């Protein structure tokens, strides 16, 4: 197998396995707190930051971090208006930021490779990139472990959380910050558009198969890493794009989980199609 012989592929593999583990666990909490939309949007909204970093020759991580902070701040500002609300605030910030990023990248005479920023350049991972990925993944793991009780309260009983020592608003903020960290860590390898797959698919699979929160977190991590491994092998053997293969592997794992546990419908009352589709917390 090619992957066993190439140092390049092995580096990429290491990075994506580590990222998969961190994203898989984080994704479980994101889904429990119904933040999938925010997750996808933050990933998109950092595009201008990435483009500017790429143009300035600065590590992408810095551009990603800056972009995420600005985006999160704008979303928070816009969401405060009662006529706007958080879903719209996210939609507008993301669309505008993404458009701005694309504008910057596609302007003529600009050398930034938009394709790499959108879909990642996993095979171009340097040792520095891997070190950053591992560091950020460790940070996420530590934060999730230490914050486990806070997260539990925020999901299970936000009203009583304060009386039980919880601070739900801080939890929301902290989780979004961790999300930003994860996206920043993964964006070099998977790109702006695909990092989301690693955050959502392994977690969703784990949530179908495991029956306690701790088990879901562990399984989510394992499946995330597995997606990284399978995706890299497929990419090496079939010569498909690395980042996209990892993303597809993650989705494939969810599909398998879905086939293993097909239904848990009818707990919820029958709803209209739009009610089922619309963003309700």
């Amino acid at each position, binding site marked *: 197998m090619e992957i066993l012989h190439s140092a390049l592929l092995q580096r990429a593999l290491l990075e994506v396995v580590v990222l998969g583990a961190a994203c898989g666990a984080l994704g479980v909490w994101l889904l429990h707190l119904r933040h999938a939309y925010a997750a996808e949007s933050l990933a998109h909204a950092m595009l201008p930051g990435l483009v500017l970093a790429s143009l300035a020759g600065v590590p992408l991580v810095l551009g990603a971090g800056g972009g995420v902070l600005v985006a999160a701040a704008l979303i928070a500002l816009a969401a405060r208006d009662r006529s706007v609300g958080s879903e719209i605030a996210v939609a507008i910030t993301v669309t505008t930021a993404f458009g701005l990023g694309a504008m910057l990248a596609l302007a003529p005479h600009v050398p930034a490779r938009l394709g790499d920023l959108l879909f990642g350049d996993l095979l171009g991972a340097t040792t520095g990139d891997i070190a950053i990925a591992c560091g950020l993944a460790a940070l996420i793991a530590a934060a999730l472990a230490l914050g486990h009780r806070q997260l539990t309260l925020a999901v299970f009983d936000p*009203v009583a959380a304060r009386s039980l020592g919880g601070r739900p608003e801080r939890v929301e903020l902290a989780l979004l910050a961790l999300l930003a960290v994860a996206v920043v860590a993964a964006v070099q390898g998977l790109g702006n558009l695909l990092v989301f797959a690693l955050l959502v698919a392994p977690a969703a699979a784990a949530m179908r198969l495991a029956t306690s929160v701790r088990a879901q977190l562990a399984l989510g991590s394992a499946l995330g890493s597995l997606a990284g491994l399978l995706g890299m092998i497929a990419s090496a053997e079939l010569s498909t794009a690395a980042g996209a293969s990892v993303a597809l592997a993650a989705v494939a794992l969810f599909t398998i989980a879905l086939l293993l546990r097909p239904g848990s419908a009818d707990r919820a009352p029958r709803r209209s199609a739009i009610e089922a589709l619309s963003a309700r917390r």
Partner: protein
Amino acid sequence: MNVSPPARARIEVSGLAASYAQGPSALRDVTFSALGGQAIAVLGPNGGGKTTLFRALLGEIAVVAGSVAIDGPTAYVPQTERARLDFPVSALDVALMGAYARTPWYRRVAENDRRLALDALARVGLEDRPRERFGALSGGQRQRALIARALVQDARVLLLDEPFAGVDRISEGAIMEMFDGLRAEGRILLIATHDIEQARRWDRVLCLAGAQIAYGPPATTLSTEVLKATYGAEIVVLEDGTRAIAVQHHDHEH
């Protein structure tokens, strides 16, 4: 029983007003006090402020005027139909949440607290199902798990939101017994209800309709005038004026 009976609890609320975010005042002029061992019915129509009062006492929403003094933890036993039943925590996990406030963030929950949680579950009659998923329990069992949580908290004041709604007769009896036990330990119970007849069972009743209408023993407080003021035009007084029903509308919660 490993939870040593606390000293008599007290709660004093004076001129309390609370509102949601920057909206208008959802609740005004609430003044009452109670001592441990007492159970207070919080009576009023939907949207009249019962849940607002609880959230203010829990510190979850802002108090814009007045004061609240409670000496010790406050526990919330909400209606579980609206809870996150899909979140995979066990009955034991829920009981353990009562110990979170006293566990520093960098430590695991103490062994002592784990034992307290198991004892609490035993006390509420759930000792044979600690690992069962909260969402898989019946309505009455969920209530009891949340009461176990309150015991682990060693709460002085328990806020119970319609604890008998949708509960069968047998569970109702068990819950009443538990309440007697909690009161005997010197805790205070605040029981939100829209059932006027149920309100008559307790020591005091607090009538809320956006503001406090009355507070006192049910016999003297639940007069026709007070009920009319609390429920507006929705009251139906039966027979010889000693029994009354409130007409409940379909719930359009905010």
